[in-house]
């Protein structure tokens, strides 16, 4: 990757993170934003109301950081899976993690669990869903890609049906709208507490994918070739699945279903840096982080209400994808 391009990719998400602290429905003068931020690293006279500090440090900052993390994580997962499955249509939810996590969250909402319990239940179900897929796909101590995909379809369909059952049982005055909005995706629920729980698995998964990015190049040539080159494909595949599952389950558990990011961003990144996973994985993380943060800024400021994230990512993501398809004429590598 050229140095100039790398600098852009590092600077873009950070610049947008900084800018995001200035925009919102609650008017805070730009200078005051700077002073509040400084006050947390140096001692400054406290000249602003408490509410400004809460808005910036408890609401805007956690939300923006979480948008960066989830955007980066989902995009890296998408890039890794598209390489591993050697298929451009794959997104991180291919193994059923999203459907299973969503079911877990809906159950938690039905039971009126607290915020952290919801996160834990949703995350646990995401892991369970992928574990089921993996076991179902296992044949003679290998997990052929086709079996993984088909098992993923089965598990996702099963959990979607269970989710439907939960929605059917839910109270229409309170629970059902909550479940419906939750499934559309939103970062509104992010607090410092929920962040503390969600960030470690995402970091762990993302670190794993970054470390494995060279192996992804080998896997993308096909499993037999990879084995011939001495790569232990079963182990590499297993680790990639664990990493993407940690990321995606964690993302769904805090912000619901955010579609399209993990599908579109890897394509977009490939246009920028090419198909080499050594550059592609970090580039996808940067572009995905910037993209999701931008969309979330729109979601929280465009109207007095909150526009569900999943709606925006699809409305913006689908035309982007269409454009990319035309532009690359389907040659996805």
């Amino acid at each position, binding site marked *: 990757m050229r140095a100039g391009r790398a600098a852009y990719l590092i600077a873009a998400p950070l610049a947008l993170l900084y800018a995001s602290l200035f925009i919102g429905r609650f008017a805070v003068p730009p200078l005051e934003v700077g002073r509040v931020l400084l006050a947390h690293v140096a001692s400054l006279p406290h000249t602003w109301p*408490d509410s400004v500090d*809460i808005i910036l440090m408890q*609401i805007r900052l956690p939300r923006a950081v979480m948008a960066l993390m989830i955007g980066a994580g989902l995009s890296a997962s998408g890039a890794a899976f598209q390489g591993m499955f050697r298929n451009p249509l794959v997104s991180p939810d291919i193994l059923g993690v999203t459907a299973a996590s969503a079911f877990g969250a809906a159950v938690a909402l039905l039971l009126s669990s607290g915020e952290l319990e919801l996160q834990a239940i949703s995350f646990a179900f995401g892991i369970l869903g992928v574990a089921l897929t993996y076991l179902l796909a296992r044949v003679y101590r290998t997990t052929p890609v086709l079996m993984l995909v088909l098992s993923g379809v089965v598990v996702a369909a099963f959990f979607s049906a269970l989710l439907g059952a939960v929605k059917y049982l839910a109270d229409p005055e309170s629970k059902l*709208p*909550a479940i419906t909005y939750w499934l559309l995706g939103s970062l509104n629920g992010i607090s410092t507490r929920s962040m503390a729980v969600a960030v470690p698995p995402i970091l762990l998964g993302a670190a794993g994918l970054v470390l494995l990015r060279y192996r992804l190049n080998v896997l993308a040539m096909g499993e037999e070739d990879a084995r011939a080159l001495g790569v232990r494909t079963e182990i590499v595949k297993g680790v990639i699945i664990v990493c993407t599952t940690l990321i995606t389950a964690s993302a769904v558990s805090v912000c619901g279903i955010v579609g399209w990011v993990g599908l579109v961003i890897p394509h977009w990144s490939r246009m920028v840096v090419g198909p080499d996973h050594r550059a592609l994985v970090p580039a996808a993380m940067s572009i995905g982080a910037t993209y999701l943060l931008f969309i979330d800024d729109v979601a929280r400021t465009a109207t007095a*209400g909150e526009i569900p994230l999943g709606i925006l990512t699809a409305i913006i993501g689908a035309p982007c994808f269409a454009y990319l398809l035309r532009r690359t004429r389907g040659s996805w590598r």
Partner: protein
Amino acid sequence: MTARASGGVLIAALLGLVSIQAPVCAGGAAAQAPAATRQVTDAAGRVVTLPARVTRVADAWHANNALVLMLGGGDKLVATTVQAQRQPWLERLYPRIDRVPAAFDARGDVNLETLIGARPDVILMAYGGSLPKWAATADAYHIPYVLMPNTSLAGLEETARLTGQVLGEKELRVAEDYIRYFDANLRRVTAVTASLEDAQRPKVLHTASAGILTVDGRESLIDDWIRIAGGVNCAQVSGLGRPVTMEQVAAWDPDVIIVGTAPNRENRRAILDDPRWRGIEALKDGKVFVNPSGAYLWDRHSAEAALQVLWAAKTLHPDLFRDLDIEKETKAFYVRYFHYALTDSEYRSIIDAVAP
């Protein structure tokens, strides 16, 4: 008895059932059509022809089931909703509600066979401008339905009147009495609140769910009672249960928060414990309240909306309504309209919105 013989008996029994059932089915709406009828004009301006004496009512509107009971028509219910059966207080006031077939599910869909099997004379349903998709089927089976307004507090009085008209003369008299009572409560509150300056009106936020932050906005019955009770609904969104951002809530900075979702007490606790809510005026003043819930949620289109206006007025302006005794009013209301004497602990369970 051999298997074949028992099969034969079964078939004979089934045939017998069919032959018994058949005349009953045939003797439904069609055969009685020439009998005495009357007409009711509903919220959509439709003129609906009903049997002169309505004895079988299907109520598709969750909140309206308690109203039917209140007007004295509870025993006429032949089909209800899953949601109505889930109200612990409705169950306490009228245990039979659990045995009435729940033809309508939580989302407003219908099990047509249950509905038709219940042979209702009429279906009562809420109307906010559009018909449920099964209305066409009700038409096809010649089951009349009466639409009732569900978008404002004034509409609630109209709903009470329409429900009374549909049920019969005795129930209509109760409905008229209820409307007079409701109006008296409204006058009692507005006599004090109408002259309030804008600065004296607290900004109120009414939350509609907890797992995801949704609030009740403008153009709704909730907005109506907040205004009447002398407050301002600070949620500048339209309709019920709209999702809003935490930051937007902070920008609105409500003086009073009313938690309107089961489990209300736990949801209130979640707000008090969340650091993101800490800077908001209502929390500084300790003004986060649980909305009462009885035969139905008081804050919605329930019979108890007549009490809701009193409770909200007292909650928003305790010093202006010093002489208003919510406990006395509530107990009197339940005796007068539900013929049920609340104990002190039962009264508390309604105010705290927990199961009795």
